[in-house]
């Protein structure tokens, strides 16, 4: 059978979601952000919330997320996305409100906003992209940088005596009573991407059912430019080094008593 006979609309099994537009993304080749954007677009489309979704973009690599997915977006000051999400959700309770933040935004400058928004149990979803480095500014040490990991500002590796320990903010948030769903996922293989999609869907559904409670989906990601590796090697490095420090799985699910 010729390829042309297979490539027909009735045989379609997978394509880029419609609300993800044709703008070429500014991310480096192999960046996990692209996959996560795609998952968000797919979930919003499948839930039929294209007209009712409001995303909040952070400061960091994902600052231009509003250029790529055709829903309503709001740009927050550095780290303040959960505070802005609180306001939007309280004013428009029937909208899906989610933030999209990196580790510099959520776990460094925005730690206070994140913790308090989650502690208040706001009905928002936080998509937290953790790659253990400040990607946009050129690969400096982040709070989430692993022990011994080399970055531009710790060229001999992170020294815990000098810089402290990697901040496991998702584990911290788990302890808050306001949190409803806390999970840590990744997007390095097709199977992992499917799991992450389910997690995002669950978090978004929790936001819309009116029961309240904050939801966070941490996605352990790669930064091939910041880590100075090829995308393939970054994935392998992430499996070997990031996953022991940030193990994948559901940390808390109030509905299932986990």
């Amino acid at each position, binding site marked *: *059978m010729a*390829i042309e006979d297979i490539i027909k609309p009735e045989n379609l099994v997978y394509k880029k979601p419609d609300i993800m537009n044709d703008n070429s993304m500014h*991310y480096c080749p192999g960046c996990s952000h692209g996959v996560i954007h795609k998952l968000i677009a797919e979930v919003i489309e499948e839930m039929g919330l294209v007209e009712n979704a409001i995303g909040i973009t952070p400061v960091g690599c994902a600052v231009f997320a509003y250029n790529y997915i055709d829903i309503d977006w709001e740009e927050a000051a550095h780290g303040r996305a959960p505070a802005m999400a609180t306001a939007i959700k309280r004013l428009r309770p029937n909208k899906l409100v989610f933030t999209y933040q990196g580790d510099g935004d959520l776990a460094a400058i925005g730690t206070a906003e994140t913790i308090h928004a989650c502690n208040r149990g706001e009905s928002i979803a936080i998509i937290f992209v953790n790659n253990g480095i400040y990607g946009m500014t050129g690969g400096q040490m982040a709070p989430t940088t692993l022990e011994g990991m080399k970055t531009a500002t710790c060229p001999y590796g992170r020294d815990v005596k000098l810089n402290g320990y990697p901040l496991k903010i998702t584990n911290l948030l788990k302890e808050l009573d306001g949190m409803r769903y806390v999970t840590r996922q990744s997007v390095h*293989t097709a199977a992992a991407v499917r799991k992450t999609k389910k997690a995002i869907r669950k978090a978004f559904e929790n936001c819309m059912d009116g029961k309240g409670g904050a939801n966070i989906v941490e996605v352990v990601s790669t930064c091939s430019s910041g880590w100075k590796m090829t*995308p393939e090697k970054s994935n392998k490095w992430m499996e070997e080094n990031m996953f022991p420090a940030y193990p994948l799985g559901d940390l808390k699910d109030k509905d299932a008593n986990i």
Partner: protein
Amino acid sequence: MAKIKGAIVVNQERCKGCRLCVVACPTNVLAMSKQVNAKGYNFAVMENEDACIGCASCGIVCPDGCITVYKTKID
């Protein structure tokens, strides 16, 4: 026995040549082209067309959403 046959279309101008699809393909269908696109990247191409089973692993892991996957049954 019915056989599953797949095919993909790569948006060659959008592809950034990260090779993640090449790694994700379980049947080693994909390879990088020798030519480059307007951005200067080698893009993904179907090299071993007959082996494609339309599993969509390449499309799912593609960070730039460049890959469209088709699948059909042959009796």
